[in-house]
């Protein structure tokens, strides 16, 4: 049991990182992680070595995060940054790209690299609050878009404005911090 507690303590920072990314609120993230660790300590037999400890804990954490989202849904509103129409910076008034999207090359090349995963994580972290939450709910909690609308009590129109912006921002961030750099490295070699 002492070993088990030490293992939980060791994994705590990682759980907290994902909880913060999902909730974008430090206090709620702490609560979700505490609830997760308590559940783990109360029922260690449900783990019983069935998979890796981290996999099991992340599974519990995902449920606790949805609980937190439900509990605080009224306070999960958009920020000023969320409301900034990034699409107007990327498209002109007739709806054309101001700057042509670049060819990102062989996807496997980027996906194989741990550094690329770090850049992606940093880019998700930089998303405005509501956009980050929605992106995480869709891509990390793997909720369907209609479930997200229900949990947050928002309209599909609102969801799509936010998800559209989230992905456009993420795309810009990856372009700036990974693909243009990779391009330069290729040219200079």
């Amino acid at each position, binding site marked *: 049991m002492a070993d088990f507690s030490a293992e939980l303590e060791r994994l705590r920072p990682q759980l907290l990182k994902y909880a913060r990314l999902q909730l974008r609120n430090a206090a709620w993230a702490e609560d979700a992680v505490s609830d997760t660790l308590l559940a783990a300590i109360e029922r260690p037999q449900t783990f019983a070595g069935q998979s*890796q400890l981290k996999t099991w804990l*992340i599974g519990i954490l995902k449920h606790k995060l949805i609980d937190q989202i439900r509990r605080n849904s009224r306070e999960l509103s958009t920020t000023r940054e969320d409301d900034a129409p990034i699409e107007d910076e990327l498209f002109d008034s007739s709806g054309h790209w101001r700057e042509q999207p670049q060819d*990102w090359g062989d996807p496997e090349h980027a*996906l194989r690299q741990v550094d690329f*995963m770090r850049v992606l994580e940093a880019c998700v972290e930089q998303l405005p609050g509501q956009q980050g939450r929605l992106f995480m709910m869709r891509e*990390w909690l793997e909720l369907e878009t209609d479930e997200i609308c229900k949990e947050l009590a928002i309209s599909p129109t609102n969801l799509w404005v936010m998800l559209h912006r989230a992905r456009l921002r*993420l795309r810009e961030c990856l372009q700036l911090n990974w693909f243009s750099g990779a391009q330069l490295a290729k040219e200079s070699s």
Partner: protein
Amino acid sequence: MLLMRTCKEVSLLVMQAQDLRLPWRERLALKLHMMACDACPRIVDQLALMRSASERWRRYSEEE
């Protein structure tokens, strides 16, 4: 025209197509736009890469 979409509209449709099944009219509009536009097919590739990357990141988050 009924089936004309701007690149801005197409960028949203491409994202929606990843998450749900679009009505046939939108799917047709998307195809027509892709045949005529040089820029938007790249967005399809970029968004596909982003989706694969998110999946890999998610799996990575669950493993030691």
